[in-house]
């Protein structure tokens, strides 16, 4: 049994699952629109939360938040469930599939059999969508937004990935699905304007005493990088820097990628609202995304120990500059979004 589900790969797992699911119900919305409406852009650098011994930085909002925000804003009704007993989690999934409902699951990366072995990290926060089941073979059909086509996974492995222990985020077989779709989409203009204001608020509103989130987080990261070499030694400093790049660019986390995605969203926002200034903001965030990528390649010259390597102070200055630009960007953007009638 396989649902008539069109799979499209996406830049980010949760957006991708949400977009693919909505398309299944006849609402073909581009991924950046969903990302933007769910005000998904964020930044956090929390040195004391660690993944494999290295501090975690994140460029997007919390796992699970995007699906909830996007579906709610667009008038869908959805349900999210968590489980303590693994067998119940699988039973419920089978029930929903039998009803013809595609089901999103939050899973760990470690046991995903179709991922390249190098990506086998204890990262619990990946999103996939289950779209079919072959009872005789004991397998499920999976639409994973990080894959070019649908893949299959055995029941044993699926149960394992839904309950992978340890790592960043405890998994309780979390699954979610859409159970009511709107007759038609609501007027997008007010939703888009509100989402832009909220995203700006999330990036700039944190009081300066909390340094880990939003633009503060970017400044904070910039202030810490120059100290790494002294406090951690060369090896650990290089590893920390590599970790930032992995978080910035790796599958499922995005970074610069999210800035570009937001640029795509602002182009759509200009069309939807008729406010042409959003196009200029799209260009601005694209330039900021390009700066994040320049930072990434300069940082690589450090941890690759190339002869013409940049210094830690140099990359820290790059991030400080990006932080300044992003803050100005959100401050200006919110003014325009509020002024649109």
């Amino acid at each position, binding site marked *: 049994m396989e649902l008539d589900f069109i799979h499209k*790969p*996406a*830049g980010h797992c949760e957006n991708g699952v949400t977009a693919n699911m909505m398309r299944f119900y006849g609402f073909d919305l*581009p*991924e*950046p629109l969903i990302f933007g409406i769910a005000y998904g852009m964020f930044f956090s650098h929390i040195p004391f939360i660690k993944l*494999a011994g*290295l501090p975690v930085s994140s460029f997007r909002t919390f796992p699970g938040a995007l699906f909830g925000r996007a579906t709610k804003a667009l008038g869908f009704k959805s349900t999210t469930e968590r489980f303590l007993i693994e067998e119940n989690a699988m039973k419920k999934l089978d029930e929903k599939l039998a009803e013809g409902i595609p089901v999103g699951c939050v899973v760990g990366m*470690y*046991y995903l059999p*179709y*991922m*390249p*072995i*190098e*990506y*086998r*990290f*204890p990262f619990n926060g990946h999103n996939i969508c289950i779209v079919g089941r072959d009872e005789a073979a004991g397998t499920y059909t999976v639409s*994973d*937004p*990080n*894959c*070019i*086509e649908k*893949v299959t996974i055995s029941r044993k492995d699926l149960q*394992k990935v839904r309950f*992978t*222990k*340890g*790592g960043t985020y405890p998994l309780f077989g979390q699954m979610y699905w859409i159970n009511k779709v709107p007759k038609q989409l609501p007027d997008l203009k007010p939703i888009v304007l509100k989402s832009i204001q909220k995203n700006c608020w999330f990036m700039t509103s944190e009081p300066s005493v909390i340094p880990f989130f939003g633009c503060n987080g970017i400044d904070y990261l910039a202030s810490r990088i120059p100290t790494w070499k002294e406090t951690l030694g060369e*090896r650990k400093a*290089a*590893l920390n820097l*590599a*970790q930032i*790049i*992995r978080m910035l*660019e*790796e*599958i499922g986390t995005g970074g*610069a*990628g999210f800035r*570009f*995605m937001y*640029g*795509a969203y602002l*182009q759509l926002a200009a069309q939807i609202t008729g406010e042409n200034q959003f196009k200029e903001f*799209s*260009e601005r965030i*694209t330039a900021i*995304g*390009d700066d994040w*990528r320049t930072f*990434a*390649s300069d940082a*690589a010259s450090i*941890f*690759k120990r190339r002869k013409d390597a940049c210094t830690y102070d140099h990359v820290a200055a790059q991030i400080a500059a990006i932080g300044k630009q992003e803050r100005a960007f959100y401050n200006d953007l919110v003014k325009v979004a509020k002024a649109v009638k």
Partner: protein
Amino acid sequence: MKVEDVPQDGKFLVDSVARDVCYAVDEQGNYQAVVSKGWDVKADALQIVLDDVIEQCEPIRQRVLRHEVSPLAYHMEKNLMDIDMLADNSGISKRKVKKHMEYDEFQKLDRETLENYAYTLRITVDELVTVPEK
């Protein structure tokens, strides 16, 4: 980023079904979704972390060869787990997992337990019971 600048440096992703999707600007200035095979900068960042893991494992490998610890200790470190995660994911108690870190205790394990550990670490039993020559 422009569409033609989207990197296509295949390394880790080439042989799998996994791909990145990047958003980039075309000649008219409009955003497009572009499928990418990866970016060297990213692959390098991953490689240095993986190389470091191998480096950290070297002293453990030496100790396994001297029969001071079991091959399980080596494969646990190499496959990015710790005792807590290994115990939780295999369903074997932490006390027992600690015991199985001893070389002699590990040799006594039955096939079923070895298979459990091998599955938990995503390696084969043959790999689990030995360490690489060098």
